């Protein structure tokens, strides 16, 4: 059970952002993907989910042996992929509870029973320490940065994907919110879920321990390793990695 990204090339508006990216994430694993601004992290997340604004010019996205490179986003979601957005869209007029029910039902043959849904929602809200009245608000409308991120993780908890991509979920969070979100991700992680945590900073990795760390520069993964790689990055910074890679290329 895994997500395989093979030699992925992606363009937006004539500009090549991903230039031959390879990555594999299996259930039960936690991966951190780190990179400076503009390295293509969000492009990767969007492409994994099939955002039509991004054009795949080469390579493949394979999930559980099935080629999803051309699949629509909803198909990917139903197959078990999920993305927590850095900047989630506002959905006016649709309450958090109604949205969640719609999303939960999209993956099911029979609609979820009201009672069962209520119980599931209650448990997950408790896990993320979300206030009851939160669910009657329109999704993301007037939400603070922290509320938006919590709403994303609440969706993750409700939808229970096989592989979750968290696109800069840590950005813009204060330390309390970061801790709550991290606790949530940790509670949901386990043998049934793999995750790809995309981040600019090492901060979230103090709370969510990755099994693997990948460093991305200019649309490619340039270094891979265990948790110690994040520590090295924290110490030396992206510029050091960039010089190292340039030197290796030159050599």
């Amino acid at each position, binding site marked *: 059970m895994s997500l395989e990204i093979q030699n992925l090339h992606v363009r937006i*508006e004539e500009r090549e952002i991903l230039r031959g990216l390879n990555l594999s994430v299996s259930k039960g694993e936690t991966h951190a993907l780190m990179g400076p601004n503009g390295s293509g992290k969000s492009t990767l997340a969007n492409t994994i*989910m*099939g*955002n*039509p*604004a991004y*054009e795949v010019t080469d390579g493949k996205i394979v999930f559980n042996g099935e080629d999803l490179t051309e699949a*629509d*986003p*909803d198909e*990917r*979601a*139903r197959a078990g992929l*999920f*993305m927590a*957005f850095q900047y*989630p*869209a*506002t*959905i*006016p*007029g*649709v309450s958090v509870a109604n*949205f969640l029910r*719609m*999303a939960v039902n*999209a*993956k099911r043959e029979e609609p979820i029973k009201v009672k069962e849904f209520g119980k599931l929602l209650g448990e997950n809200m408790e896990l993320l320490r979300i206030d009851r009245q939160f669910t009657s608000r*329109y999704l993301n409308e007037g939400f603070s940065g922290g509320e938006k991120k919590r709403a994303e993780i609440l*969706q993750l908890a409700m*939808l229970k994907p096989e592989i979750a991509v968290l696109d800069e979920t840590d950005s813009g969070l204060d330390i309390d919110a970061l801790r709550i979100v991290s606790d949530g991700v940790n509670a949901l992680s386990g043998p049934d879920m793999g995750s790809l945590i995309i981040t600019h900073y090492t901060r979230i990795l103090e709370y969510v321990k990755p099994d693997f760390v990948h460093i991305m520069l200019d649309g490619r993964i340039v270094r891979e390793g265990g948790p110690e790689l994040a520590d090295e990055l924290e110490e030396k910074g992206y510029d050091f990695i960039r010089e190292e890679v340039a030197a290796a290329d030159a050599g």
Partner: protein
Amino acid sequence: MPDSPSPSVDWLGERRKAALDAYEAEPVPTWRRSGFWTTSLRNLDLDALETRRYAPVGSADELPAAVRDALDDEPGALIVQRGASTILLEVDPELTAQGVIVMPLEQAVAEHGELVREWYMRRLSEGDGKFPAATAAFWTGGVFIHVPRDVRVERPIQSVYAIDEAGTAQYAHTLAIVGENAECAIREYCLGGDFDGQALHAGAFELYARPGARAKLAHFQDWGRGEVHDISTKRVEIARDAFVSWVPVHLGGRLTKQTLDIVTAEQGSDMRHTGLYFTERDEHLDLFTTDLHEAGHTTGDTVWKGALTGESRASYEGLIEIVAGAQETHTYLQTHQMLLSQRAKGDAIPSLIVKTDNVSASHGGTVGELDEDQIFYMMTRGISRIEAVRTLVEGYFEEVVQRLDDPGLETLIRRRIGEKLLAAEDQVKEFVGHRAGAAQEA
């Protein structure tokens, strides 16, 4: 055009005569705005239309299905006009005991002549144009509502104008007076069937909310698939410290040209104006609303939202006018329009005339399409593109629907919008899909 009915009362006969003169003097108008928006009646064969009389029905159960479905189950009063005839009148005896009058305007002229005369066309004029003149000259049946002072009516008072046959010309006049400190809810429906051919509804509506009154007023227009041309003027006047929440809803009509004016006429009067429209196929909708503040210390809050599918055309122009001396007026107007088809065309224009100082007045307007980011976001949750679109449009309207504060009407509107979206599913899919494809090519 029909003969003018014989005047039953002199003063009314004189008004009808003046209206007939105005009608005959005026050519059939073409409405033009800004040089590019035109509402024309050149395709309407006026001479082929006639007023039609119908026999009364015994109860609401015998009403056409299109009418029955839209009505609240337990109204306080129900009056139904089909074509030129009042075919049903049901008033809860409790209301009658409270002194509430609901009856055809024709009957009210005979039975409550002085009261009708005092208010009749106080804010309407046969000089407003060809069709206001036609309505004033030719109306039959009609609706008269009077809620006496200090009376509170819980259940809605409902009036219906129905057209269910091609070739019908309907001239409608509703006069409503909500007395001092009285409270009530009034819903007026314009309903049609799915007949083949043309029809005309020329309507006049006037409501006077007396000092301290509180009224909820809804207009629900759904003429169906028949080619109904609706040319109407509706005016609401709000007296001192009174409040009216007015909800005009337009869900269908071949051609609609309406002037909707709400007037805060005296100090302390307050209005909430919430409009909604959904056009489809080849419908043409042309609305001009005015929030007129005639006195100081008045407040207004207007929101209009519309959506367009098919090859429909919809123009909404909303004006806030604050007259000289109406200081300490606080009002705003917002209008939004959403295009759901490549071939639909729309316009949403807010404007402002302020002739005094020390007021706050703001307005805003948008014409847009569905946001591809929102659709993508929803799809990443497993929701199909078409369901995402449907949900977004329903959500877009939901903000307005929730302002109605009328659960029965809210349910009806939600249902009708859902049906319209379902009917337009293929073209909306094509439109949104086309844009997604274009984004990829960009």
